[in-house]
C-alpha cells in the first residue's frame, strides 16, 4: 500500500501540488436479510481503490480510481492537480490548513469474532429463527431481519509525511415486525430502527443483541398498537428512550455543529446552521445538566464514529460541544479550523470510501449520562409520555425546527406507565427543547447507538455515526403534531 500511495504523492508534487494526501481503501461487505421466513438479500461485495486530494494554485482538487497500476495512479494524481487548477479559476482566497504533525502509525479497531469467518449458513439461521419467532404472533403481516458487516482496511499518506494504516470492522443487526390491519400499518423494531444496532465490533455484537429473545415482543407490540390510544395533542412532559434520543442528538446537535455547514459550504444541499460563529461560548444550548461531547476515541466506546485517525491524518480526539448547557465547540477539519482561528483540527474529516472526498462528519456525538434510574424518572413524572424507537424524523435547513415520531409510546400518569399510545409525535425548536431537559439517566442506562445511514455532501456520501444517550426527560414539549387537524 505504501508504494502505491507514494506513486500518487510523487506525481502530485511533480505536477505542482503544494499539498497532497491519499486514501487507499480496501472494503469488504456482507449483507444478509430475511423477509417472511425466506432469505432476501445474500451478497458480498469488495472494492479497492484510491482517492487523491491536492492543493494546487491555492485550490482543492480530488480524483479517484480503481486502476491501481502505476500509470493508473499517476494519471489519477495528475487529474487531481488539473482539477485543482480548474478550481483556482473560480477561487476566493487560497486554501489554508491548520497545522498538524505527521504520524506514522497503525491502528486496529476492536473485533473479537470476525463475522466473515462465521459461516453464512449460521448467520442466516439466526435471522430465520428470529423471523419465525415474530411470525408466531397472530396479526403480524410482515417480518424482516438483517445483518450487515463491513471491513475497512485503509492506508493514509500525505505530503507532510504521514503514513497511517487502520483496520475497522463494523457490524449491525436488527429485526422489524409490521402489522397491517384495517387502515393502519404499525411496526416495531428491535433493538432500534435503521437496521438495528451498529458498532465498531465483530460478530460478538450480533450475539449480544439476542434477536431471537426479543422477537416475540416486537411482534406483539406491533399488533397491540392497533388498539392503542392515539397520541394526545398539546404540551406535555416527554421522556425519550435512549435510541430515539440518539437520533434527536444526531439531528439537532450533531448536524448544526458541523463547521462546514456553519461556514456555508453545504448551503446548496443540506443547508446552513443556526449556530453562527457569534454563538460559540455564548449560546445557552441546553439546560445546565446537558453535556455533549464529540469523541472519536476508543475510550468513549466502540461506536460508528470511533477510529484512530480521521481521514486527513488527524488523531481521534474528544471535543466538548456543550458544557453545562453552554455551546463550546464545533466539528472541524484542518481547513475549517484554520478559517475560524482554531489551533488545530478537531479530527472529524471522514470519507465513505476511496472514491469520495473526506468532509466533516460526526464522530460519536453523545449526551453524557446523568444520575437517574428510569424507574425513578417515571415515578417522578406526574403526567407525561415515554416515547421509544424512531419512526420519522424531519428538521429544517438550519437545524432549528424539528418534528419526530416514534413507533410506540406509553402514557405516564401519577408516576406510573399506563396505557400504550400509537402514532406518537413531537416537535420543537432545538435550543428550547434542550433547555427543557431536566433529568438524564445514569451510565448504567447509557448506550452508544450507531446510526449507519447519515447522508451528506455532493456527491452524497453515507456515513455511520455514533450517539451515546441514556433516557432523558423534557418539559413542555408539543406532542401529537403530526396527526393534528
Amino acid at each position: 500500500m505504501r508504494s502505491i500511495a507514494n506513486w500518487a504523492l510523487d506525481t502530485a508534487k511533480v505536477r505542482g501540488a503544494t499539498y497532497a494526501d491519499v486514501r487507499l481503501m480496501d472494503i469488504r461487505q456482507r449483507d444478509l436479510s430475511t423477509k417472511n421466513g425466506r432469505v432476501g438479500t445474500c451478497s458480498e461485495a469488495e472494492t479497492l481503490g484510491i482517492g487523491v486530494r491536492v492543493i494546487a494554485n491555492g485550490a482543492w482538487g480530488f480524483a479517484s480510481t480503481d486502476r491501481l497500476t502505476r500509470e493508473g495512479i499517476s494519471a489519477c494524481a495528475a487529474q487531481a492537480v488539473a482539477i485543482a487548477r480548474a478550481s483556482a479559476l473560480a477561487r476566493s482566497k487560497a486554501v489554508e490548513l491548520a497545522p498538524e504533525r505527521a504520524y506514522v502509525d497503525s491502528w486496529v479497531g476492536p473485533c473479537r469474532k470476525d463475522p466473515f469467518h462465521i459461516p453464512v449458513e449460521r448467520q442466516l439461521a439466526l435471522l430465520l429463527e428470529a423471523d419465525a419467532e415474530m411470525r408466531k404472533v397472530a396479526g403480524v403481516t410482515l417480518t424482516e431481519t438483517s445483518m450487515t458487516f463491513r471491513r475497512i482496511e485503509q492506508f493514509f499518506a500525505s505530503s507532510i509525511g504521514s503514513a497511517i494504516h487502520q483496520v475497522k470492522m463494523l457490524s449491525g443487526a436488527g429485526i422489524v415486525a409490521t402489522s397491517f390491519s384495517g387502515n393502519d400499518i404499525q411496526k416495531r423494531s428491535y433493538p432500534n430502527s435503521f437496521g438495528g444496532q451498529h458498532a465498531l465490533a465483530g460478530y460478538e455484537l450480533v450475539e449480544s443483541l439476542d434477536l431471537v429473545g426479543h422477537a416475540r415482543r416486537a411482534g406483539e407490540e406491533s399488533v397491540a398498537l392497533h388498539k392503542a390510544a392515539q397520541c394526545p395533542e398539546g404540551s406535555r412532559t416527554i421522556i425519550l428512550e435512549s435510541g430515539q434520543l440518539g437520533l434527536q442528538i444526531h439531528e439537532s446537535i450533531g448536524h448544526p455543529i458541523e463547521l462546514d455547514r456553519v461556514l456555508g459550504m453545504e448551503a446548496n444541499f443540506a443547508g446552513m446552521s443556526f449556530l453562527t460563529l457569534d454563538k460559540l461560548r455564548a449560546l445557552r444550548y441546553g439546560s445546565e445538566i446537558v453535556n455533549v461531547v464529540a469523541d472519536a476515541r476508543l475510550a468513549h466506546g466502540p461506536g460508528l464514529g470511533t477510529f484512530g485517525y480521521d481521514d486527513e491524518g488527524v488523531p481521534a480526539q474528544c471535543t466538548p460541544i456543550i458544557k453545562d448547557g453552554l455551546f463550546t465547540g464545533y466539528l472541524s477539519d484542518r481547513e475549517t479550523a484554520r478559517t475560524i482561528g482554531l489551533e488545530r483540527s478537531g479530527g472529524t474529516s471522514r470519507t465513505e470510501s476511496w472514491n469520495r472526498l473526506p468532509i466533516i462528519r460526526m464522530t460519536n456525538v453523545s449526551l453524557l449520562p446523568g444520575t437517574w434510574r428510569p424507574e425513578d424518572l417515571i415515578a417522578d413524572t406526574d403526567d407525561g409520555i415515554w416515547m421509544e424507537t424512531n419512526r420519522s424524523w424531519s428538521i429544517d435547513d438550519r437545524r432549528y425546527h424539528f418534528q419526530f415520531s416514534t413507533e410506540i409510546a406509553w402514557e405516564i400518569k401519577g408516576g406510573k406507565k399506563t396505557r400504550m399510545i400509537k402514532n406518537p409525535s413531537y416537535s420543537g425548536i432545538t435550543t428550547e427543547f434542550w433547555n427543557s431537559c431536566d433529568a438524564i439517566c445514569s451510565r448504567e442506562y447509557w448506550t452508544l447507538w450507531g446510526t449507519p445511514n447519515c447522508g451528506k455532501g455532493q456527491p452524497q456520501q453515507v456515513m455511520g455515526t455514533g450517539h451515546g444517550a441514556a433516557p432523558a426527560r423534557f418539559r413542555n414539549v408539543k406532542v401529537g403534531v403530526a396527526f393534528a387537524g
Partner: protein
Amino acid sequence: MKKGPGAHQAREPATHRVAPAAAAEHLPAPGELVRIADRVLKLSDADETEVTIDAAADALTRFANNAIHQNVAERYLTVSVRTVFDGRTARATTNKTDEDSLKQVVAVSAALAREQPKDPSLLPVPGPQKYPKVRRFFPRTAASSPDERARVVKRIAQIAVKRGQTAAGVFSTGAFQSVITNSRGLFAAHRQTRAEFSITMMERDSSGWAKANSADVASLSPHELAENASWRALATRAPREIPPGRFTVVLEPAAVLDLLGFLFYDFAGTAVLDKRSCLNERMGKRIFGENISLWDDVSHPLQSGAPFDGEGLPRRKVLLVDRGTPRNLVYARATARKMRAKPTGHGMALPNEWGEAPMNLVWSGGTTSLQDMIASTEYGVLVTRLWYIREVDPYEKILTGMTRDGTFLIDGGKVGGGIRNFRFNQSLIEMLANVETLGPAVRAAGEESFEMVVPPMKVRDFHFTEVTRF
C-alpha cells in the same frame, strides 16, 4: 443507494496526456465490458450464472460563498455475479478484473449460494430479450472538462457578487454504461451521459433555488437557473410570518416531485403482497382526482436510465393510475408469478426482498400555466421546493417536511412577497384528490426523489402545521 466503486484493470490507458477529467476518456470501451462478462460466464460451473457490469466516470464541481470549494472526479467498474445451484442463489461483487479476482468473485458467489436454503420461488434466468431503443449518450457531455465547469461557476459567482448575493451549488457531468448477460444467452447493454446544475442564491434573510438535470449538458442553462434562483432570493426578502393552517398552494414541479416520489414503491407488487403499500385494498378504487394519471415509461423523451431491469427484462410501459384510479402495479418475474400477473420488467437485481419498483414515472400534465395558477388564486402560497420530507403514516401516506428557498404569499391573484417557511403534515392521498389544476409536465429534479416527469399543481387545503422563526 451506495455506489459500488470500480475495478482493477490490466490495461494502462494514457489518460493523463489528454483532458484528464473528461468522462469519455475514463469509460472503458463497451467491448471491454463484454470481454469481462464472457470471461466470468466461462469461469462459472453453476447451474446458471448472471453477470452485471457497471462502469462510470463522473465529475462534480461544487461551489459555496461564490467560489469553488470542492472539485472531484471518480471512475469505477464493478463486476457483479449471481450463481444458481439447485434452486439456491447468491451474489458477489468486486471491482477487480484480473483473472484471479474474477475467479474469486465467482467462487464467493458460489460458496454463498450453496449455503442458502432452496428458494421455491426462484425462476430460471430469462433468455434473450428485445429492448426499446433509447438514445441517452451525448459525446459533448462525456467530454466536459473541469475548466469548462469552473468558467461557468465563475460567471455565476460574478452575477451573485454584483447583486450582493451568495451563490452555492453544483455542476456535474459524467457517463456510465452497464451490461447484463447470463448463461441462457440474454444480453443487454446501455450507455448514458448525465449532467446536472443546482444553485442556491442567498441574501441576509432570504434564498432562492433552482435545479435541472439531463443526459445532455447542452440542454442545461446554468445562467437561466442562476437568474431564477437570484430572483427568488430577491423577491422573498424580509419574509413575513403567516400563521399556519390549510392553504391553497401552487407547487412548482420540484416540490411536486419530492412529494410524489414517496409513492413510487407503493406501486410494487411486492409492497402490496407484504401489505405495506398505501394501495392495499385501494386498487381499482378512485382515490385521487380524475385529473391524476400516472405511467411508468422508460422511453418517454424526458426520462433517463436503462431500458431493462435488474434481471435483464425490458422495462414495459405501465399505466399505474388511470384518471384517479390506481389500476396496475409493476412486477418482477417472481412477483408476477405469485400474483398471477405478467412481468413488467421492473425487477431489482436478485436476490432481494423488495421485488420491483417503477423508476421512470411520468405524471399527467395539464395546460394551465404557473402564472394562470397564481392569477386564479385569491389567497395562497407559492412553493418553490420542499425539504427533509419523511413518511409519518404509511397507509394514509402522511408526509412531513419543510418549505425552503422561495416561499411566497399569493394574494389577490398576485405573488405578494416572501413568507417564512412552513412545516407541513399532509396526506398524499388527500392531496392528490384536491388538485384543482395542473400545468404541463416537465422533467423535474429535486433532492428527496429520483427525477420524474411531473407538472406544477395547484392544490387546495394543503396542511401547513407550523411556521419557522426565520
